[in-house]
């Protein structure tokens, strides 16, 4: 049983999946917004694609520009929501957080990864750093229709 649960609206999942397919064979990325309950469970209501700003091989790497990030935080403040994490795709690889993902991960954030195999969505998982440790825990993902 995972320590964390994350509820993701069906609409947000569709946005993530569509972005992963469109970007294939490159990695896509975007922001995840929603709310967090007192018990730490999360409801992601909105996924917003953002440009992969990585210079170099975007089939294996993603990067979000600082300007896009600060605008995402401002969007959250203006819309009374919370930036809960980011998503990205793993083209032709499983939705398992990689060493690179771990090395770059920020605490608190949910890292949703969509696996896109040969241009089709194969899997979706979410990961969160264990407090104060460089170790990912898989979050239990629950897709919900009504939010």
């Amino acid at each position, binding site marked *: 049983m995972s320590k964390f649960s994350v509820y993701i609206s069906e609409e947000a999942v569709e946005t993530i999946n569509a972005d992963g397919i469109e970007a294939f064979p490159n990695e896509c990325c975007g922001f995840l917004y929603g709310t967090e309950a007192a018990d730490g469970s999360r409801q992601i209501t909105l996924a917003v694609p953002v440009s992969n700003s990585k210079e170099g091989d975007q089939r294996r790497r993603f990067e979000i520009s600082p300007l896009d990030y600060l605008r995402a935080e401002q969007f959250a*403040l203006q819309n009374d929501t919370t930036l809960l994490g980011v998503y990205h795709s793993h083209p032709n690889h499983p939705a398992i957080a990689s060493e690179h993902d771990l090395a*770059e991960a920020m605490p*608190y954030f949910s890292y949703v990864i969509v696996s896109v195999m040969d241009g089709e969505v194969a899997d979706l998982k979410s990961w969160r750093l264990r407090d104060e440790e460089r170790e990912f825990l898989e979050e239990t993902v629950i897709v919900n229709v009504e939010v």
Partner: protein
Amino acid sequence: MAKIIIPTPLRKFTDNTSVFETSGGTVQEAIEQLAQAHSGLERHLFDDSRNIRSFIRVYLGEDDINSLEKGATTVSSNAVISIVPAIAGGIN
């Protein structure tokens, strides 16, 4: 007063405060005020030499302070300072 927007990954160190008001006259002073008010932020913002950590960017409005005068950049009373963590990753 100028405002500092706290990124969500660091809000656990600010009692969930998202915006910090500061009277600091420079970016360095503003960030120092924030760190003094929320001591848990210290090690996440500064390295051992009191420089802002390399994986943190600081923006004044939409300008990277590294393209201005870095920590010495003057902060006006209506300025918005953003602390921006690096976001990246990818497959092995």
